[in-house]
């Protein structure tokens, strides 16, 4: 549960930070298409993270988890090439959430098997 919230938080921070960079001049990222891409991917992460809250398993959750991982990797790479440490930190947070959720799910399954 906490993992999904962290993913959503990572997405929220990512979207907010990249929106700031997109609008505010001085960082040489204002108006850049690459930043727009990150705003969209972060918002998707936020939505997907929220959609994951309360879902423990099932096909939808599995697809969301896979897509979120791709989103985190892609957005993280973008953050690296945009040279925006705050955005990279947000993606690290989302990744932490993803790992926490994976561990939590694995633990739940092992309890069920036991």
């Amino acid at each position, binding site marked *: 549960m906490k993992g999904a919230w962290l993913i959503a938080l990572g997405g929220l921070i990512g979207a907010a930070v990249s929106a700031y960079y997109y609008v505010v001049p001085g960082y040489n990222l204002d108006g850049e298409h*690459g930043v727009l891409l990150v705003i969209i991917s972060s918002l998707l992460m936020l939505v997907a993270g929220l959609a994951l809250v309360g879902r423990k398993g099932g096909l939808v959750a599995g697809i969301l988890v896979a897509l979120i991982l791709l989103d985190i990797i892609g957005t993280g790479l973008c953050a690296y090439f945009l040279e925006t440490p705050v955005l990279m930190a947000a993606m690290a947070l989302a990744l932490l959430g993803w790992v926490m959720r994976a561990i939590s799910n694995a633990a739940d399954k092992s309890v069920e098997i036991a």
Partner: protein
Amino acid sequence: MNRKLLFVALGAVSVAAAALFAGGGVAQMAGEANDQIWDAFGGNQQAQKYSTATQITPGNVKDLKVAWSIHTGDVVKTGPKQTNWGATPLFVNNTVYVGTPMFRIFAVEPDTGKTKWLYDAQGSKRVDNQGYKNRGVAYWAAATPESGQPCQKIVYLGTVDGTLHAVDADSGKRCANFGNGGVLDVNQWSTVNAKWKIGLLQPPAVYKDTLILGWAGLDWDYKTENPGTVFGIDARTGALKWTFNIIPKEMQDQTGTANVWASMSVDPENGIVYLPVSSPSPNYYGGDRLTEMPYVTSTTALKAETGEVVWSRQLIHHDIWDLDINSAPTLMDIKKDGQTIPALVQATKMGFLFVLNRLTGEPVYPIEERPYPASDVPGEVAAKTQPYVPYPEPTVGDKTPDVFPLTDMISLGECSRWKARLRDEGRYTPPSIRGSIAYPATVGGVEWGGGAVDPTTNTYVVNSDSVVQVYTLVPQEEAAKVLQGKTRNAGYWAQEGSRYAFKLQNFVTRLGDMPCWKPPYGTLSSYDMNTGKLLWKKPFGRVQWNGFYLPESWGSVTIGAPVITKTGLIFIGASMDAHVRAVDLKTGDVLWKHRVEAPAVAQPAVYTYKGKQYVVFAAGGNSILTPRLSDQLVAFALP
């Protein structure tokens, strides 16, 4: 404490240096004997871009901080009237002077950036052929000033509708004796085939009491246009002293331009001005101008007082690639075989460094005539041979860089398929109807900033681009559908009056504008001009693509130029990523960098004021490089 001692010790040296670098009619003012000035676009009239300042060293450059930063307000970021600001500020007369692309002069305090006075040429409503463009101002001072009289020191600003404004350097008020109340209509002297008003975006060269003035035009739009001229005018009054006609009279109904749009350099000892002469119109089809025109695409030396030709050397024969000679030659005295040779280095879009005896025009290092491919376009006759400089090593290779596998893969083979359809026989492949690879192309090579030299060692540094473009000649009836009555539209230029219009494309993918050719896209090189040996060559700068910073090893296309300081530093902006950098002269390693608001597309000014060294960049940008434009003037200094 050590700095104070250093400056006392350097006092005498500074005075001598100031005298040496003052050049032309620029007199060093009393009270600033310890200051290192920067009184011309190229640092001095010899275009050496060298500073004797010693405070900033390779050891402490990492500590450089913004000393001040101002915004002129003169910027248009989008649309057809967007600004292109490639000014190098001047520091002289205890003031930093800079021209803006909306034709204003800012005179600011050198240590604070606070405005002393502001002059408005009121040219912003009169944009003609060049749009909003400016490369700065020129400065002149009377050798024997008349006490109490204004305009004994003058700052000059050109506009793109052909007026030159003369302003008192102390007060910012127009000089009444110059032209008509301080404004000279230079356009009055451009009467032949006057398709447009001439653009004075580059400040004039200064020799004693003579200003030498070139101009910019449009050479892709028409076949016959204003023919290239250079004017010598009186610095005090603006009276015309002489005119140098570049295109022979008998050819003026077939062609035009071949003007001097870049800065010039001056040998103050010998009274010679050196002109980098551009290509004749129309730039990409020469079938109507096959007659030999010896002064076009040349470096030409004139007597600065009279305009008489001392020597001229054509560097491209029958140019059909728009490979203008586009930067002021850098003057230096080369030590070779036990002799001192008064020399110049002419950097070019072709990536050749022509090293010539500046008194005779004879090559210091050999120039060969090499055969090149013939044109397959009806009516066109490409030159059978072209000058080739094998040594010093050209900054650009002879063969087109290979297709970049990464881009080719991402574009699903678009790059390699496109290249296979084009004519590509390396350097000087003539433009064709099916499309030809142009490498080096109109972007260059070396752009209008040229190189810099440490005159004490003759270490020469130059940045260079590696850009592949595609040149296509289009029959006029076909082009008319795209041009729709205009002389330029959607990547087409009319070359009106000739058989073919012209289509220019960058060799990039349709989706995303990714370069189809292998990096590096730009380099910085250092040469020992006493031997001609290449000392180092490294990728320089970084591309910022849609916000993403690409690897340093790919380099960047650069517009702007380096300067060298006595302590072995190179300062340069120029890169697409809108960073300014300090580079180690010995190794080429980047020692410091700082983000500015747009690419600094001219060389910075380096000066010392009240014992403190400043490096000032105009971060204006140029739409050729990136869409990122600004009006920031920013100075760096040690804390």
